[in-house]
């Protein structure tokens, strides 16, 4: 097997990281979403019990966590590769994505306060929604930045 150049390795690992984070975001969002009762009424999910939906989505999310750890172990083995994958453009994208997440949570909190003043809302559902925003928004924006370097 011919040895890949550093750039070829980086491109391959960047693609895998993108797919991995996209899968992680989607499966995590899905796992949280199935905790809400109205989601169970969706035509595609109607035939499954809430317990099956919960355990099924948790299992799929756990599979992406295993993939994430395996990716991290492979990256850690090669110091140069790790440095290139986490270069300053990547770090800047990550920082910007965290800022988007921060503001999304702040806006979410502001909206929650208004909503709870007007209607009775389950506190647990509210916290879960905020958690979904806090995790999904930075990851999704990071994926967007990573795919659109000419933004």
């Amino acid at each position, binding site marked *: 097997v011919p040895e890949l*150049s*550093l*750039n070829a390795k*980086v*491109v391959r690992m*960047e693609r895998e990281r993108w797919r991995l984070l996209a899968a992680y975001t989607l499966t995590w969002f899905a796992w949280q979403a199935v905790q809400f009762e109205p989601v169970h009424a969706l035509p595609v999910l109607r035939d499954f019990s809430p317990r099956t939906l919960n355990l099924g989505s948790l299992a799929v999310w756990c599979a992406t966590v295993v993939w994430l750890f395996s990716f991290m172990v492979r990256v850690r083995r090669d110091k*140069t590769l790790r*440095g*290139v*994958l986490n*270069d*300053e*453009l*990547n770090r*800047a994208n990550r920082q910007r994505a965290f800022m988007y997440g921060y503001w999304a949570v702040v806006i979410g909190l502001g909206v929650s306060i208004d909503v709870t003043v007007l209607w009775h809302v389950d506190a647990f559902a509210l916290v879960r929604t905020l958690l979904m925003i806090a995790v999904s928004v930075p990851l999704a924006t990071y994926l967007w930045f990573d795919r659109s*370097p*000419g*933004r």
Partner: protein
Amino acid sequence: VIVLKNRLKELRAAHGLTQADLADKVLVSRKTINTVENGVFVPSTTLALKLATALGCAVEDLFYLGAETG
């Protein structure tokens, strides 16, 4: 508005290097080189120095201040 501009593309081409070659030399991704060339990403002083060293020129030859166009 004064912005940071660069001659990275022309100096890289003068050395017969591709974006990937230059990326390998300074240990960043090809995407980073691309975004610096297009003026989308402003590199740190460290990366600017590394790029200048890799291309055998001074940082001032590579980066300069210019008026924003378009």
